[in-house]
């Protein structure tokens, strides 16, 4: 699945949580699609790999 599609799922989930009054979850979910900015054609698997490499390379993790 491409990140553009994942973004749609996360945005729908944000909307559902907001409508249900779970603002905290909605706010948290709203942050995530920002990771997809400029990478819409990338797949979720590729992004996951990039982030995993970053996490292992970072001394703070």
């Amino acid at each position, binding site marked *: 699945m491409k990140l553009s599609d994942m973004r749609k799922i996360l945005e729908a989930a944000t909307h559902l949580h907001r409508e249900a*009054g*779970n*603002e905290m979850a909605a706010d*948290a979910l709203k942050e995530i699609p920002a990771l997809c900015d400029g990478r819409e054609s990338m797949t979720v698997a590729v992004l996951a790999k990039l*982030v995993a490499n970053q996490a292992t390379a970072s001394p703070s993790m």
Partner: protein
Amino acid sequence: MIFEKVFQTASRSSMTVGELRTVLGNIQHLCLAAGAKTAVKDLEAFSEMLKPYSDMPVDKACADIKRGLSQPAKKPTKRATRAGSSTSVDPNLIQQHLTELREAGTNQDAFDLALKKLRHQNPSSRRVSQKLPVNFR
């Protein structure tokens, strides 16, 4: 039941990534119930991707990830050398072998002898000699 879990209310103002992963898990259940297998699999991958950041607030984790992704990938500083091989080149040795091969000219025996010496000196030269036409070997 899924909806009860998805829409449970919260009292704090910000969420940790660990808590967000629980929310993502609930969305996964929703997708599973709808038969969206690809979405389930990718939500799982997304959640796993966030696992190392579980103790961090979501906004900080996202900022860290974004910052990390915006940096160019680091190139290895030095190429690893193969065990037992040397990267140093001796120009005199190369010249010596070149001269012997050139002097052999069309003499097949002299050429074979020069090539044999070259192979004996450096086993990796076999790759080069294997590419030569049959009448040059």
